[in-house]
């Protein structure tokens, strides 16, 4: 009997370790929620670990109690056989389990509630003054990012890659152009939905430089799986330089291939895409003015290399079926020309 108890306890401890050990190893995955890179995420991460610890503890305790309950049954064991009715009794003391159990449960819940409310209050708004303001508009299946603020000459639009300065709180207003999406970059912030007809707000702040992956967190149709974005935190000087570069219109191309490509681009792509400084002014697709600065294309689906850009233009429906980018049936030379032009969009 005592042996059974020891075995049960050892199993419980082992089970706890098996569960907990991998959890700590998960923290460094790109989308892990067990990692916080900024002041908004820190209190939430602590709360998350705390509630996880409570949860694992409860599961281990109840599991242990069940194993113990089964292993400390009196002998001889009963069995269903034809030898007549089995004993039935009502031993005392059962109700105490409920009183003690509920008492412990209620205390744990109360503590968790208070903690949750404190964290909720702490992360509601950024503590620092000032900061940056952005507007993110969700589309099926990409992210429009508007850098707003005064003066108007400082405003510009980009897509899918958000740059922020390190150590500065960034307030983001969230709107949707079509269906419900959700803005989620786990290392920096939990989810806030983008709901048509409604303006939500969230904020993020990065403690150190780096690239943080985000993904749409609310099912939004066929390519919900391929609606990623990234937040790039730069040291303030780098960020200012990036902003300056983003404000510039794209310079006219110099070599012939790129010139031909620009003409083809404006004609074939301009009705959906904007490149400032050209006649391409479409608003249905991402702004491409500084396309080559981004790490990925198609909302995080492909690395942003000439080869991938060409593949995307040639067969968007094969790569991201259902996306709004149509198959344009361009000829080989046309694609090559457009690629040459796109390569100039620095």
């Amino acid at each position, binding site marked *: 009997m005592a042996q059974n108890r020891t075995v049960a306890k050892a199993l419980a401890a082992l089970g706890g370790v098996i569960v907990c050990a991998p959890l700590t190893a998960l923290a460094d995955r790109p989308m892990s929620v067990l990692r916080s890179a900024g002041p908004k995420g820190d209190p*939430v991460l602590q709360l998350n670990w705390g*509630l996880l610890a409570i*949860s694992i503890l409860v599961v281990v305790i109840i599991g242990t109690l069940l194993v113990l309950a089964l292993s400390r049954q009196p002998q001889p064991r009963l069995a269903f056989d034809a030898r007549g009715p089995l004993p039935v009794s009502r031993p005392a003391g059962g109700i105490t*389990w*409920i009183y003690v159990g509920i008492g412990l449960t209620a205390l744990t819940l109360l503590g968790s509630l208070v903690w949750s409310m404190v964290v909720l209050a702490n992360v509601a708004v950024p503590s620092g003054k000032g900061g940056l303001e952005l507007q993110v508009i969700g589309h099926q299946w990409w992210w429009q990012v508007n850098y707003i603020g005064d003066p108007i000459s400082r405003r510009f639009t980009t897509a899918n890659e958000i740059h922020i300065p390190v150590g500065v709180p960034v307030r983001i207003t969230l709107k949707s152009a079509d269906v*419900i999406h959700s803005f989620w970059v786990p290392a920096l912030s939990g989810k806030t939905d983008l709901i048509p007809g409604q303006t939500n707000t969230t904020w993020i702040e990065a403690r150190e430089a780096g690239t943080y992956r985000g993904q749409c967190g*609310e099912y939004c149709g066929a390519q919900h*799986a391929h609606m990623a974005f990234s937040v790039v935190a730069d040291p303030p000087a780098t960020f200012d330089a990036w902003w300056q570069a983003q404000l510039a219109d794209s310079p006219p191309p110099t070599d012939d291939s790129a010139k031909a490509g620009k003409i083809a681009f404006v004609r074939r792509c301009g009705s959906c895409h904007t490149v400032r400084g050209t006649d391409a002014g479409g608003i249905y697709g991402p702004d491409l003015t500084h396309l080559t600065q981004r790490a990925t294309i198609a909302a995080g689906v492909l690395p942003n290399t000439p080869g991938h850009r060409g593949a995307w233009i040639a067969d968007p429906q094969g790569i991201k079926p259902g996306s709004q980018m149509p198959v344009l049936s361009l000829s080989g030379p046309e694609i090559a020309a457009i690629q040459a032009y796109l390569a100039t969009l620095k």
Partner: protein
Amino acid sequence: MTVADYSREPRILAESYDSPLAERLKTLWETKPGIIGWLSTVDHKEIGIRYIVTSFAFLVLGGIEALIVRLQLAQPEQSVVTPTQYNELFSMHGVTMIFLYALPVLSGFSNYLWPLILGSRDMALPRLNAFSYWTFLFSGLFLYAGFAIGAGPNDGWFNYVPYALKPFNPGPSQDFYALGFIFFGLSVTAGGINFMVTALRTRAPGMSINRFPMMIWGTLTANAGNLLAVPSVSLAFFMLWTDRQFGTHFFNVEAGGQPLLWQHLFWMFGHPWVYAIVLPAMSIVSDGLPVFCRRPLVGHTAVALATVITMIIGFGVWVHHMFATGLPNLAMSFFNAASFVIVIPSAVSVFAWVATIWTGRFIYATASLFFVSFIWLFVIGGVSGFLTGSVPVDWQVTDTYFVVGHIHYVLIGINVFPVVGGLYLWFPKMTGRMLNERLGRWNFWTMFLGFNLGFFPMHISGLMGMPRRVYTYPDGLGWNTVNLVTTIGAFIFAIGVLLLVINVLVSRKHGRIAGPNPWDASNLEWSTPSPPPPYNFVVLPTVASRHPLWEDRLNETEGRSTIHEGAVLDHGKETLGVSPLDAIPDAILKMPHDSIMPLCLSLSLMVLFVGLLLKTGWLIGLALLAGCIFSLIWLWPRVSQGQRREPAT
């Protein structure tokens, strides 16, 4: 004429199940053979088994959909199915499991068992019972017809707008779902009404409320909840359908509609619904586990109250599905608190079950293995729910596989495991044969290990940030291994389900013969033959305690239930009506004969919904007319049922 002229003193006799009285009752109550008999039966036992079989068929269909989903997700960037197919598969999986399996299987058990547990000859409204089954079947076929033609639901089971509106979803998928759900809702409502009236009116004398077995509490609570909650989502689906087909503006933003109205209406239904699909299953364990612990449930009253309180609080937590929608923090705090408070009544049940085993004399059997493991799975599902109930944490884990892990622990752990255990427990009563215990052990361990292998890793992939409802995922995010393990576990679990099906099919013909009470259990259903005759009880029992068949051994009360002597009630199909609280008899209820009207009315509804789907006026008109006629025939006052004065002779 006064009440006295229409009253009668029931004959009290002591009779056995092989007496001439029994033979006469059998003739009165049995379903006539042949196809007409099969289509027109109102016998709750036949209807209950149909519910269970049909819902298991849907379970298998939903399971196949899940296995295809798991094949697609086993590795990153696969193309086993296209995105469109995938989105329909995961949506249909949810719809099938949550609607077409989870509630009907519990309705099936309750339908079969309630009159036997309560000491009555049938449910209060037998024709409505038949109607609720046919409507369930036809609504399921309606939904699957859409899926079969590539127009199945494709926006998840919770179907958010605006994606469900016409501009984004032009095909008929959403119309199939909207109309199909309203159709299904009619079945749930009909069933709910039947359970409420039965619990209040058709019981044995002495079966007072405090003596109700837990199966009554669980199902009663669930159905009371459904009656109040289903209208919310039926209305939401109606509004969705009219937005799509008639240009109303409930949800579309340009004209003042509110997308969040959908979410509120849906979740005001959705949260009570998920309690409706687990509370009866929990009560299966509350009634079944004590049999294998040779003692009554610890804290029976506390658990009954906890069941009711859970459902009541369950109406006050719905916003926890909407924590990321930008609602004010104050409102969300209230729902965070309520979501924590609801853990307490669940904990009452958990400690009651643990205490019952701890202080009881446990007997290993396949059924009891399912019941014990259920407790642990319940706790895992419960704590993951507790975690997502915290607003700031939910902001990270909502819409990730962490939630998918949670929902499967609560749905498979708290619904499927008790259902399978319940099958091992009550199969002997329903068929007269035992399920094979050896195969049962294989069944249990395959399901238990496969389930945990498949679904525990989802908590991990969720914590690693894998969103839900994605048809694929990129390499390099650390999600590959957990997905592969999950897929393997899912297939092992499926083998476990297969073993169950094999056990049922084989044991029906070759299982060991079971007597009336192979488990030496305590409730009234174990006092009848296995399977029970059409009339359930040859004489109606009188109840004196919660555990009629254990009274002598427990020796806690002076009174004793009388099982083999009681009211005969053989002037036609009759059962007793009693007062709601104390079960004092106050009427001899005349029960209806088999009738084809429930089927006819269900078929009219099918025609109606097809007409609405196709927007064909004459079909709609025909269906309404037919429905009107069938309803009038159904409700026509009959002398045999005491609804009309006798004609003057």
